[in-house]
């Protein structure tokens, strides 16, 4: 039974692939859209979904008559979760296939790998995943959340709504948790939480033995302060963590856990027996599948019919791709050309309704305004949205680290992604990578 379902899924995906192939061979003038998501390797599970999302959006746009009277043509490549390969494939897309825009990357490393190439060749990339900030490239539009659109509001929720006084910052050892935890540490200190009340731990990718760490977290309660866990644990390592948490009898009321990388997909790795012990634990995103709006309903329906499977979940990066793609279409239409500089100029100030009932706006720092949603895990693996803010403008450079606080990004007036507001100079035009 399992095999058959998988076969069906594979067949559906294969259908999508061959369709792309057909479009690719269609003669005539088209606008080429590069899709730079891993289709194999460790990141394939997350990124394949985004590749399908882009293909779905392109198909829908072509049905509406394309852009500027031309059909869109997807060029799909597979960087295979191999970071150097991302740079190579990006170069190939820009120089060999001569794409007008790229949608792609998931991990920060892959983005940092691609950055020098697209800045050198003046490409255009839409990056749809929540990330650690501290970057604003002329050639990249960040449609995922910056730390102040996910991490900081979630921490505020802990401080204000749950009254947490002692924090355990648990993360997988890579750049997103490292930077996010640095920002959060600085933020918590600015809110009067002393350094000894912040416990930080990093674990390797795919960590499975959590007994010691869960015991450590539990022992934090000896101070008589309310303990909360902020988790930037990545991917399937969460499953072992949540199982250990449940086994040790810790409920959301004792020690709340808010996760930034756990969505509907990750929870599907837990059975019903484990989920019931996690009810009430939190996740912070800018989108949940359970959002009750007509746009979201239409999006989910379109997704299910495109992928041919009613059980596939939608998630936050998919929404980010959706907003980014539609803004790009509008910007190209407004600019009347696909030339990168003109499109980038037209992108700033673009508005497009997001899937949770408010309006997303592209800011001069190439980040979006996004509402922050906090959800409690339900027994069915979905999230109960218990808090939703008004759209928050994304901040490329955090205000809570001294080196970054003086920096700002403005591609509209200042024409600089790393502008020092104290010395009033542009630190550099290209990005750090």
């Amino acid at each position, binding site marked *: 039974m*399992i095999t058959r379902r998988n076969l069906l899924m594979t067949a559906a995906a294969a259908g999508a692939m061959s369709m792309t192939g057909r479009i690719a061979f269609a003669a005539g003038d088209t606008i080429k859209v590069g899709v730079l998501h891993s289709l194999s390797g*460790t990141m394939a599970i997350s990124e394949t979904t985004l590749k399908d999302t882009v293909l779905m959006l392109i198909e829908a746009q072509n049905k509406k008559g394309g852009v500027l009277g031309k059909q869109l043509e997807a060029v799909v490549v597979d960087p295979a979760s191999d970071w150097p390969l991302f740079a190579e494939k990006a170069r190939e897309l820009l120089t060999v296939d001569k794409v007008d825009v790229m949608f792609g990357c998931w991990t920060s490393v892959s983005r940092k790998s691609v950055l020098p190439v697209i800045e050198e060749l003046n490409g255009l990339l839409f990056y749809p995943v929540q990330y650690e900030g501290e970057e604003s490239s002329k050639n990249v539009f960040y449609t995922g959340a910056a730390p102040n659109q996910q991490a900081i509001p979630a921490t505020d929720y802990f401080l204000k*709504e*749950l009254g947490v006084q002692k924090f355990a910052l648990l993360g997988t050892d890579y750049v997103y948790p490292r930077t996010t935890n640095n920002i959060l540490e600085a933020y918590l200190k600015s809110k009067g939480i002393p350094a000894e009340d912040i416990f930080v731990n*990093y674990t390797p990718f795919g960590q499975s033995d959590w007994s010691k760490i869960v015991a450590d977290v539990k*022992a934090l309660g000896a101070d008589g302060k309310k303990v909360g866990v902020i988790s930037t644990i990545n991917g399937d390592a969460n499953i072992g963590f949540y199982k250990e948490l449940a086994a040790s009898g810790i409920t959301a009321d004792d020690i709340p856990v808010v996760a930034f990388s756990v969505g509907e997909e990750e929870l599907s790795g837990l059975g019903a027996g484990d989920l019931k012990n996690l009810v009430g634990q939190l996740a912070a995103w800018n989108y949940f599948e359970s959002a009750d709006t007509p746009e979201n309903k239409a999006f989910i329906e379109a997704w299910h019919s495109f992928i041919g499977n009613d059980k596939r979940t939608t998630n936050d990066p998919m929404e980010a791709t959706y907003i980014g793609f539609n803004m790009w279409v509008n910007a190209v239409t407004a600019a009347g050309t696909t030339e990168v500089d003109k499109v980038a100029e037209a992108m700033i100030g673009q508005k497009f309704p997001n899937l949770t009932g408010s309006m997303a706006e592209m800011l001069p720092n190439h980040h979006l305004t996004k509402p922050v949603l906090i959800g409690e895990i339900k027994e069915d693996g979905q999230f109960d949205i*218990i808090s939703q803010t008004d759209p928050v403008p994304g901040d490329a450079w955090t205000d809570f680290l001294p080196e970054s606080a003086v920096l700002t990004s403005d591609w509209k007036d200042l024409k600089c992604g790393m502008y020092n507001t104290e010395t009033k100079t542009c630190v550099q035009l290209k990005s750090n990578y």
Partner: protein
Amino acid sequence: MRSLLLAFATSLALALPAAAQDAAPPVPVATVQTGLAAVIAQNAGAIAKPSRQTIAPVIAALGQAGAGAPDFLQAWADKKLGARKSDGAIFRVTKSADGYALADPATGADLGTAAKAEIAEIKPNAGVRGLIASALIQFQLSDPDPKTRLAALTALARDGAAEHLAPLAASIETEADPAIKAQKERLLGLLTIRFGATPEARVAAIEGFGADLGLDFRAALNPILATSRKVFNEAPSGNVALTLTPGKPGFSEAEAYDLLVTEGLAPKRLSSADLRAALESHIENNAVGGVPVTELADPGKREAAYAALEAAGKVPAGATDAEVSAAVAQTRFADIYAEPDPTVTDAAKAALDAVSLKVSAMQGADLTLDALSLASIYFLAAIGLAITFGVMRVINMAHGEFITMGAYTGYVVQQFISDYTISILVALPLAFAVTFAAGVAMERLVIRHLARRPLETLLATFGISIALQQLFKNIFGTQARPLTAPEWLDGAWVLNDIVSISYIRIAIFALALTFLGLFLVVMKRTRLGLEVRAVTQNPSMAASMGINPDRINMLTFGLGSGIAGIAGVAIGLFAKVTSELGADYIVQSFMTVVVGGVGNIWGTLAGASLVGGLQKGIEALNPSNTLAAQTYMILFIIIFIQFRPRGIIALKGRAAGD
């Protein structure tokens, strides 16, 4: 004394709404209508969108609103309320097929139905639910249902406050259930430590606990001992915990001066950034204070330029080292307890000191349990590898994939058998059978043809490993799959608040012991074991004695693989089931075998204990970085091999071969 307490509690409760009136937007107005319905109606907006910071007065008002209030609060906390979108009226709602069944919020009377679109469900967050639970405590402490009483006690343990002291004390006498009574008495003690009216009562309460290991006891003591670092011009006043001398270890002069700066008692020292900024703002004719700008890359020249500016009075003077020392010497520093009464802090300190040794011992015990558990997992994962390596001198790189295969077998079984207990009982032998078959197939098709070429076998099995891993991905996807333990394995065995271990881990430990026993019986008591031992020691001689080494090799390989499959089910139960599950354990399994020494089950056991214990030990030394623990463990093993190249328990004599 009790009446005094009561009076205090009541006055506090009365003061709460009044105090909040000027702070909170939703203002509970004291009106002549005192009914619950009126209070709900007045605060409908706040009830529909509650925030922990502002909702307290509303909850207090509701709590005092009389009959029906506890039920209403409970419904609110259980997310069973809804607000009508048109006018914001609050109802109790029950979801039905096409909409909601409505009921009066105060009385619970039926009020008909409403369409789905008309009602917005009210979802108070966990913080608000905590406040509601706290408000409900007073109603629930003497509730006839023991479950409700227990719920109240849980809420009390989480958010106990001074006003709960009196009702709790009052409810103890009438409590019939001895377990609940004991819990109530414990909570009363804890509350008294924190909020007791007199120091004597609090000290008595602290002493009543003795050297209790409970986390809650320490949680009550530690806040009493919280200190803050203060600056004094004369002798320190207040409840002094420690007088500090600048310059002594633990309190440097720089720290002391920084404290003075933050208190606003001394000017800041000049940082290099300030220096630079000051110089930059005084550039005249490409020079600062007479020093040309181009020379200012030299820190010494910068100091000189600043001194020149200082002399000219253009910049403020920075604090010099001598001034810093003088300022620090003039001042007294001390850590002061927030708690004013010294008898209480002394008692708390004594109690904590008495507990702390016990706590450390218990932490050691917990760590040992963790290490044992990890060792048993490594043992299970490595035992199959050890068997094949010991008997055939073959390293099976696909061993990890056999572990994964076992875990996926468990997952597939759970898709067909929904009862978790039965499914695990089916999955274990099935996983053994599946991986046994896979192992036998691999031995016959590949390994047999590479006899006596161990390095090539290693590579060929690696080829199988990558093929299998990708095959799993193609079949099951890269997303983790659920493998759920039966309910009776939920939870943990808890000795006290420090020492506990989950039942799944205990079960895995038992499984590992079982296999150790099974293995010993097979090897020492059966014909097969005898033949296996013979082949291990000398295949040619065994063959001369009428043993078929090929058959023995095949069976051993199958046996080793089968145990890997069972290990897969066990690991899947407490971690995740992905195609990389086995690969995560394979290196540790190799380490276990190599460290332990081949050809001897006790060696594998010793290897697993060493690897597991070492990993947990290093983790405990460096709790913030689990990755470092793994690195150092591997380094240790590389060095260990230098001293015992054949492992802890090495075969001796001719059997060792070479």
